């Protein structure tokens, strides 16, 4: 009954979305304020309906209702409750429902929190958002309905893919979708601005909090996915340049560019056309990512059931929205008067540099991701474009950007003083190079590129923080605290986020110093790993709620004695006869010892993949700092209130009529 209700409210949500997609636009064109003002209510109602539908599916999962096909295929009664709950989106249909839920959530959030926006902009924005929602609700109902029943309910479900039975599943997809789908509202704002012909600085102010919110979630979502892959897959890698990863990285790159150029648009009324274009491109890339992941055109760890009908459906949605928005953009491009040009050496000049390199790097990722698909479509050749391609294209394109970040931070708007900015940075760069050279000498050398990477990372961190130091100690040290408290939050936010970039760069560069040992050990045997000794004590078995596991017990020693007992294991899950590796890790500082177990053979011999990974945790600490910077910036009221309003909240309709 609840399941049928869930299905029914999903249909109602489609009806509401179709209403919300059409009536406010009609109202805005007819200048009928009453119709326009229906949009926010419809947005909230649509969200409530989708949420109810999502709750119904969750109910079916929690109660292990195997008469529902989707639950039968992806759940098991023995599965722990947290995975019953997060398993709702661990499959194609459920994840698309989550997609639509978040789409509706952003619509409702704008309806509730942006009441001071001009009514017509709010109405048309929500209408565009509802157009996207209608398309995906139709996709859910007609091509991937999660509520389909099986006539004769099976006794037991097929179980969830064991790789997904991890707390990561509860966090990674929702965060990633919040980011991915969050850019939809920025797209809707851009489309509304184009439709109404109102592309101005106010637009930049309106989209800023939403861009930032989506960007924070996407940053954390990608980092979380990377960390999950690191500990779950047992290969110790953190980024594989897998097409699906690239699908999330591309909107992140253009989203980051958008975040920065919206500042230029807000402060200087320049780069309007480009800001709008980036807003469109970013969400288009999100849609492309959804298509790549959900259509089954890619061989990927993320690919669910391959169904050509679904792929085609998403492709049609993709083409309609990307094509439609670009056509709208082209039609309005002439109407957007260009902003003033500005001096290359200035804050805005540096931000253009940021945008240029981020978008060109995104282009490289785009080509590397789609070229294999294109080639196969053209002549049937199957190729793979892997890490070497991206390391030679996207990575070198990011390096000039990293070098310029601290410089840009020091340049003033309009006319910057390059020499003044470089003066302090020279000192930082020189100090960092000396420190790294001394460190390398003490260690007895190291890979040059990795050392350069660490130097670059340190320079980024110190350069970012120097901004704060310089501002607070400008007139002697007596007023440091008074000055510190006078610095706007946004400046702290920028420093923290940019320092996060540096922290991540250090973590990535430090992977060159990791030690990998692939060995076969017998009980009692000891190997040397980094600064530690690792001894195999024996095998152990364990019975979990829905799996059986065989583990190998190791002790990790340093000079003082045993510092940790580590038990990497292999699990076999009930339901699906599929083994998974459970790695064991020992953290010291920001570094880790990482053990993954391989096959066991007679005499209790254990194959082992053991790593000592110095500073590996910095790879994910960096993005967390970036997101923290984003949050801090989001909390800066200065940037949210006082946006120029046009006839906001006035009961009068818009002029003319």
């Amino acid at each position, binding site marked *: 009954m609840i399941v049928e209700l869930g299905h029914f409210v999903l249909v109602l949500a489609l009806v509401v979305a179709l209403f919300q997609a059409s009536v406010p636009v009609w109202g805005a064109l007819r200048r009928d304020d009453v119709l326009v003002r229906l949009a926010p209510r419809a947005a909230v109602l649509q969200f409530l309906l989708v949420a109810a539908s999502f709750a119904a599916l969750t109910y079916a999962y929690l109660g292990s209702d195997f008469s529902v096909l989707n639950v039968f295929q*992806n759940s098991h009664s023995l599965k722990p409750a947290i995975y019953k709950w997060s398993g709702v*989106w*661990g*499959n194609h249909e459920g*994840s698309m429902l989550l997609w639509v839920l978040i789409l509706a959530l952003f619509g409702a959030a704008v309806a509730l929190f942006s009441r001071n926006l001009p009514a017509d902009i709010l109405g048309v924005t929500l209408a565009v958002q509802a157009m996207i929602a209608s398309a995906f609700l139709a996709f859910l109902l007609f091509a991937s309905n999660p509520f389909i029943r099986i006539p004769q309910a099976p006794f037991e479900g097929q179980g*969830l*893919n064991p*790789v*997904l039975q991890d707390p990561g*599943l509860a966090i990674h997809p929702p965060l990633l979708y919040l980011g991915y789908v969050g850019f939809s509202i920025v797209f809707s704002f851009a489309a509304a601005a184009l439709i109404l012909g109102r592309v101005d600085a106010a637009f930049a102010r309106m989209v800023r909090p939403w861009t930032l919110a989506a960007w924070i979630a996407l940053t954390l979502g990608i980092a979380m996915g990377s960390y999950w892959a690191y500990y779950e*897959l*047992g*290969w110790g890698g953190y980024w594989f340049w897998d097409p699906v990863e690239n699908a999330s990285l591309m909107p992140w790159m253009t989203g980051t560019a958008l975040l920065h150029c919206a500042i230029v648009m807000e402060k200087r009324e320049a780069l309007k056309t480009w800001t709008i274009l980036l807003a469109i491109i970013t969400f288009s890339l999100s849609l492309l990512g959804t298509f790549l*992941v959900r259509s*089954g055109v*890619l*061989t990927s*760890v*993320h*690919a*669910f*059931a*391959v169904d050509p009908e679904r792929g085609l459906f998403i492709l049609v949605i993709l083409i309609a929205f990307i094509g439609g928005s670009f056509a709208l953009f082209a039609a309005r491009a002439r109407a957007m008067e260009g902003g003033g*040009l*500005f001096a*290359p050496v200035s804050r805005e000049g540096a931000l253009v540099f940021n945008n*240029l*390199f981020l978008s*060109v*790097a995104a*282009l*490289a990722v785009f*080509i*590397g991701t789609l*070229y*294999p698909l294109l080639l196969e479509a053209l002549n049937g*050749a*199957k*190729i*793979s*474009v*892997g890490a*070497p*391609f991206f390391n*030679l*294209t996207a990575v*070198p*394109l990011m390096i000039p950007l990293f070098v310029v970040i601290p410089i840009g931070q020091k340049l003033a708007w309009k006319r910057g003083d390059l020499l003044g900015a470089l003066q302090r940075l020279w000192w930082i760069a020189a100090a960092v190079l000396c420190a790294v050279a001394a460190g390398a000498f003490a260690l007895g050398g190291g890979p040059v590129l990795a050392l350069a990477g660490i130097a670059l990372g340190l320079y980024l961190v110190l350069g970012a923080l120097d901004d704060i130091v310089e501002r607070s100690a400008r007139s002697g040290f007596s007023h440091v605290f008074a000055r510190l408290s006078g610095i706007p939050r946004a400046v702290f936010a920028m420093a923290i986020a940019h320092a996060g970039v540096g922290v991540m760069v250090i973590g990535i560069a430090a992977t060159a110093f990791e030690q990998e040992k*692939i*060995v*076969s050990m017998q009980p009692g045997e000891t190997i040397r790993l980094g600064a530690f000794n690792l001894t195999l004590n024996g095998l152990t078995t364990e019975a979990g709620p829905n799996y059986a596991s065989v583990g190998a017990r190791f002790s990790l020693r340093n000079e003082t004695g045993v510092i940790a007992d580590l038990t990497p294991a*292999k699990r076999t899950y009930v339901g699906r*006869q*599929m*083994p998974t*590796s459970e790695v064991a890790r020992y953290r010291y500082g920001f570094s880790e010892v990482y053990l993954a177990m*391989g*096959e066991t053979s007679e005499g209790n011999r254990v*194959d082992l*993949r053991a790593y000592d990974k110095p500073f590996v945790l910095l790879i994910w600490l960096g993005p967390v700092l970036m997101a923290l910077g984003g949050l801090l910036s989001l909390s800066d009221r200065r940037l949210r209130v006082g946006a120029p309003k046009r006839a906001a909240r006035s009961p009068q309709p818009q002029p003319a009529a």
Partner: protein
Amino acid sequence: MTRKQKRLALILGLGAVLAVALGLILTALRDQIVFFRSPTEVAQGKVKPGEAFRLGGLVEAGSVQRETGQIVRFSVTDGATTVKVTYQGLLPDLFREGQGVVTEGRLDASGSFTATNVLAKHDENYMPREVADSLKKQGVWRDDAPAKGSKP
């Protein structure tokens, strides 16, 4: 600088960065892409010794031999032809005889394949699409085997 000069400088700068980027991309596309080959294509001599490529097919039943030093030998087949593969290292969890596999590496002079990487699958039902296509070509495809894959 005048307005016109500024605009020119901006356009030249954009053009230069784009040119560098395209140069990087084209070079990397020429040198860094890896082709997927089936054992039959290898037998037809489509691959030169020393060229890196991906070899995909089924792990032939009964062909897996483990040796000391974690060296594993096995054969990859597409039903018509088989290629012998040597790999040193740990195999992914789902590596099994009779199952699909994709390996990356090079042919040596004797025509045997040395793998540097055996790609992990993430689901017991999941079949790499390239492998499925090549098996279909050889007519050894069973429709029931690869039902579906899974992971968000």
